[in-house]
C-alpha cells in the first residue's frame, strides 16, 4: 500500500457529519408508478411506527440474511474503515456497523427477549417517526450497497442487505427518494433509465451507425426491435447518449463476429434500480428482459458495461424470474471469448496513446465474479495496463462513491467525499506510471468518476473498456478505407498547402500553408497540429452564423449556438453531442 493510500485510513471522527446529506423525497406520481405498493407521501407520524415494524418483521422472516445479520454482529469494528463514506465523512453512523445498528437497535427493542427485558443496556431502542425520518432516511441513503464491508467482516455481514431492508421499510411508510423512483418509473414508461422515447432511441442508433461508417467506412448495423434474434443486448441507456464510444465498441464486436443480435425498445436498459429500491421492482424490471428475450427467441442475453445491472442479473434474475429459457453473459465475458477464439482482428498499437488502469465496479468484482475477463480484454487491446494497489482492486475494490442509487445532484458533496479512496488510488498510479485512462466498465462510474477526478484534480480520462476495444478492433474493409482516406487527406493537404495562408496570431501572410506552419512553429512555439488550426483560423469563424436544424425534433434555428442551447435544454443532451445532432440533417 502506498503512503497516500495508507493515509486515508486515518479517519478523523466527526459524529453527525452525515446528517447534512439528504436525498430529495419522491413525488406522488413516481411513488404511484412503483410495482411495490407504497404510500404516495410520507405517512402521518401516528401510523409510521406500526407500518414500519410490520414491514421489518416481514423482512426478517423473508430473508435469512436480514435475520442473521441483525443477530450476529459482535461490533468488533473491523468493517468501519472499509466504508468509503466513513473515510470521507468521519461519521461513525456512516460505517457499516454504525448504519446497521440504527436498524438493529429497533429490532432488539421490538423483536428480541433481551431487548425487551434490558432495553438500552443491550443497545435496544424503540422506533419513533424521528428515527425513521432523521436517521434511517439519511443514513440508508448514504450506503452505496457496494458490499466492501462484507469482505472484511469476520462473518461476512453484508451491510447492503441491511440497507436494502432499511429502504424497504422506509418505502412502506412513504419515505422513498425522488431519484430512484423517477428512474424506475421511466423504465416502466419508456423501457430505460434515462426515459429516452422509442423514436429518439432508434434515431440515436442510426446516428451511431453513421458515426461508425464515417470513421471506418464499414456498414455496421445497430439493430433495434428485430422480430427474431439470437442475441438480445442490453445497454446501459447512457451508452446511447453520453458513453457512445462504448456502444460503438460493442456494435463493432457484434459486427466483427457476425452475430445475429438486437436491442429492444421495451427493455432498452441493462440497469435495474429495483436493486436499490425493493425486491418487487427488481423482479418486475428483470421480467421485462426475460419477456423480451422469450419473444425474440433469443438464445443469449448479453448485458452491457454496467456494474449493478450485472448483479441484478447474475444474482437475482434466475432466482426470481427463472427458469430462464436462455443463457446470459456479460459483454466483457462475450468479448473475451471472441478474442480467445481469435475472431477479432486487433491492432493493440492503436491504443498506444493511453496508459490504462482499471476501476473494478463493485458489483462486477464482489457480486458478479467478473475480474479476470475485464483485465483480459484490456490487455488484449492495449499495450500499457497498470494495476492499482491490490488493496483497492478486485474483490477489495472501492466504490466510485455514486452507486446504490446515490448518483443524484443534491448529495454531490457526499459523493465527492465517498470518491476519496478511489481518487487516491488513481492518483498513485497517475504519479508513478503516467496513467491517463481510467477504465470503468459501468455506467454509474462513467457519470461519477469524471467528477471525482476533476474534484481531486487528477488528470485522467474516464471511459469504458469497449471504447478501447473499439479503437483497436479492425473491421473487414476498414484498412482499405483508412488507406484511401489518408491518401485523400494528403492530396487535400497538398492542395491546401499551395494556397496562400495567413497566420492567425500575427497576421503575417505566406505563400503556402507549410510556410505559415513553419513560421508558427518557430515564432509562436506552437505544435504542428495546432499551427494548422491557427493558420486556418480566420476562415473557420463563419460556421457559427449558419442556420441549423435540430435532428431530434426538426426545429429550425438561426445559429448553431441557439440550436445547441435548445438541444441541451429540451433533449437533455450534452454540449458535444448536441453539436452532432444539430448538424446531422445537412
Amino acid at each position, binding site marked *: *500500500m502506498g503512503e497516500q493510500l495508507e493515509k486515508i*485510513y486515518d*479517519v478523523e*471522527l466527526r*459524529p453527525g457529519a452525515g446528517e447534512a446529506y439528504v436525498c430529495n423525497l419522491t413525488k406522488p406520481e413516481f411513488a404511484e408508478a412503483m410495482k411495490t405498493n407504497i404510500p404516495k407521501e410520507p405517512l402521518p407520524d401516528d401510523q409510521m411506527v406500526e407500518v414500519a415494524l410490520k414491514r421489518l418483521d416481514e423482512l*426478517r422472516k423473508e*430473508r435469512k*440474511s436480514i435475520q*442473521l445479520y441483525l*443477530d*450476529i454482529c*459482535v*461490533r*468488533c*469494528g*473491523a468493517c*468501519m*474503515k*472499509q466504508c468509503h463514506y466513513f473515510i470521507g465523512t468521519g461519521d461513525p453512523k456512516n460505517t457499516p*456497523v*454504525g448504519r446497521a*445498528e440504527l436498524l438493529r437497535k429497533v429490532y432488539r427493542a421490538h423483536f428480541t*427477549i*433481551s431487548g425487551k427485558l*434490558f432495553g*438500552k*443496556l*443491550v*443497545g435496544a431502542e424503540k422506533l419513533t417517526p424521528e428515527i425513521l425520518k432523521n436517521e434511517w432516511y439519511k443514513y440508508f441513503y448514504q450506503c452505496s450497497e457496494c*458490499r466492501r464491508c462484507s*469482505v*472484511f*467482516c*469476520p*462473518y*461476512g455481514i*453484508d451491510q447492503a*442487505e441491511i440497507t436494502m431492508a432499511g429502504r424497504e421499510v422506509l418505502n412502506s411508510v412513504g419515505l422513498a427518494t425522488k431519484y430512484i423512483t423517477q428512474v424506475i418509473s421511466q423504465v416502466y414508461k419508456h423501457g430505460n433509465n434515462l426515459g429516452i422515447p422509442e423514436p429518439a432511441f432508434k434515431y440515436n442508433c442510426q446516428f451511431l451507425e453513421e458515426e461508425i461508417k464515417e470513421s471506418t467506412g464499414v456498414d455496421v448495423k445497430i439493430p433495434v426491435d428485430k422480430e427474431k434474434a439470437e442475441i438480445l443486448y442490453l445497454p446501459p441507456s447512457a451508452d446511447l447518449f453520453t458513453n457512445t464510444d462504448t456502444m460503438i465498441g460493442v456494435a463493432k464486436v457484434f459486427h466483427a463476429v457476425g452475430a445475429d443480435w438486437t436491442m429492444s425498445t421495451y427493455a432498452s436498459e441493462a440497469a435495474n434500480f429495483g436493486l436499490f429500491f425493493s425486491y418487487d421492482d427488481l423482479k418486475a424490471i428483470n421480467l421485462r428482459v426475460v419477456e423480451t428475450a422469450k419473444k425474440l427467441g433469443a438464445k*443469449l442475453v448479453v448485458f452491457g458495461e454496467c456494474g449493478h445491472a450485472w448483479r441484478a442479473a*447474475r*444474482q*437475482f*434474475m*434466475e432466482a*426470481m424470474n*427463472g*427458469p*430462464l429459457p*436462455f*443463457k*446470459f*453473459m456479460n459483454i466483457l*465475458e462475450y468479448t473475451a*471469448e471472441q478474442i480467445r477464439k481469435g475472431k477479432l482482428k486487433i491492432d493493440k498499437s492503436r491504443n498506444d496513446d493511453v496508459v490504462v488502469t482499471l476501476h473494478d465496479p463493485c458489483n462486477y468484482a464482489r*457480486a*458478479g*465474479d467478473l*475480474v479476470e475477463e475485464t483485465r483480459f480484454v484490456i490487455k488484449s487491446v492495449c499495450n500499457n495496463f497498470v494495476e492499482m494497489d491490490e488493496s483497492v482492486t*478486485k*474483490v477489495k475494490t472501492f466504490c466510485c462513491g455514486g452507486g446504490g442509487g446515490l448518483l443524484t445532484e443534491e448529495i454531490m458533496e457526499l459523493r465527492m467525499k465517498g470518491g476519496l479512496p478511489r481518487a487516491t488510488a488513481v492518483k498513485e498510479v497517475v504519479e508513478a506510471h503516467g496513467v491517463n485512462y481510467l477504465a470503468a466498465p459501468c455506467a454509474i462510474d462513467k457519470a461519477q468518476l469524471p467528477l471525482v477526478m476533476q474534484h481531486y484534480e487528477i488528470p485522467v480520462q474516464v471511459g469504458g473498456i469497449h471504447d478501447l476495444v473499439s479503437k483497436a478492433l479492425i473491421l473487414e474493409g476498414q484498412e482499405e478505407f483508412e488507406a484511401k482516406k489518408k491518401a485523400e487527406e494528403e492530396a487535400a493537404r497538398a492542395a491546401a498547402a499551395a494556397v496562400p495562408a495567413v497566420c492567425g496570431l500575427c497576421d503575417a501572410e505566406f505563400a503556402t500553408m507549410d510556410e505559415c506552419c513553419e513560421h508558427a512553429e518557430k515564432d509562436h512555439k506552437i505544435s504542428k497540429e495546432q499551427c494548422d488550426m491557427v493558420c486556418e483560423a480566420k476562415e473557420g469563424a463563419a460556421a457559427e452564423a449558419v442556420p441549423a436544424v435540430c435532428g431530434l425534433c426538426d426545429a429550425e434555428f438561426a445559429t448553431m449556438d441557439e440550436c445547441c442551447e435548445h438541444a441541451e435544454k429540451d433533449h437533455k443532451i450534452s454540449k458535444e453531442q448536441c453539436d452532432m445532432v444539430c448538424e446531422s440533417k445537412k
Partner: protein
Amino acid sequence: MAWLANFVVNVLPYITFIVFVVGVIYRIAVWWSRPSPAPIPVFPGQRTVGSAISRVLADVIIFRSLWQFPGNRILWLGAWVFHVSFLLILLRHLRYFLGEEAVPGWVAAVQSLGIAAALVISVPLLYLLIRRIVHADLKFISTPADYFVLLLILSVVLSGLYAKYFSTPFVVDVKYVMRSLMALKPVDLSTVTLNTAFLVHFFLVQVLVMYIPFSKVMHLGGIFFSPTRTHHFGGEAHTKKLEEA
C-alpha cells in the same frame, strides 16, 4: 449460605443446561428456517459447494477475513488468541466430565496447554476491552452488553485462576460433583470440600452459559449460515462459455 451453595450446585446447573440447549436450538432453528430468496455470495471463491465450505472453514479456523486488512491485524491476533485459549480451556475442563476414574488420554494431553491458555487469556481479553474504551469510533458503536460479556468472561477466568491457585479445591471433588450432575444425582454437599472460590467460579460460568443464546456470542453458530459466505451459484443460466449459449 448453605442453601445458596446447594442452589448453585444442585439446581442451577439444570436450569442453565435447559436454557442453553433450548435457547441455542431455538436460535439455530430460526436461522435454519429463514428462506434465502436469491444467492448472494460475495466473491471470490464460491463457484461450488466445496469452495464455499473451505471459505467458511478458513474464516472459522484462522479468521481469514479479519486478517485481510493490515489495520485489523492486531484485532485478528487478539481475537484469535482469545478464541484458541477459550477453546483450550474448554477442552481442559473436560477432565471433570469424562472418564470414570482416569480421563481419556487426549484430555490428559491437553491439560498443560489448557493451563497455559488460562494464564494467557486475560491478555487478549483486556485488549478487547481496552480497545473499546480508547478508540473513539469503537466506543461510539459499543453497547453496554459489549463490555458486559467481556467483563463476565474476565471474571470467569480470574475466579477460575483464583480457585485453582489460591484455594485448591480437590479435583476429585469437582469431578464427583460434575459426574453426579450428569447422572442426575443430587450432591450431598457435606461429603465434599467445595470452597467459596469454586462456587463463585461455577456460578459465573453458568451465567455466561445462560447468556449465550440471548447474545451476540451466538456468532459462533451464525457464521455457518452467513449467505455471503455459504451461498454459491447453483444457477444454470449464466455462462462464461459461448459454446453453451
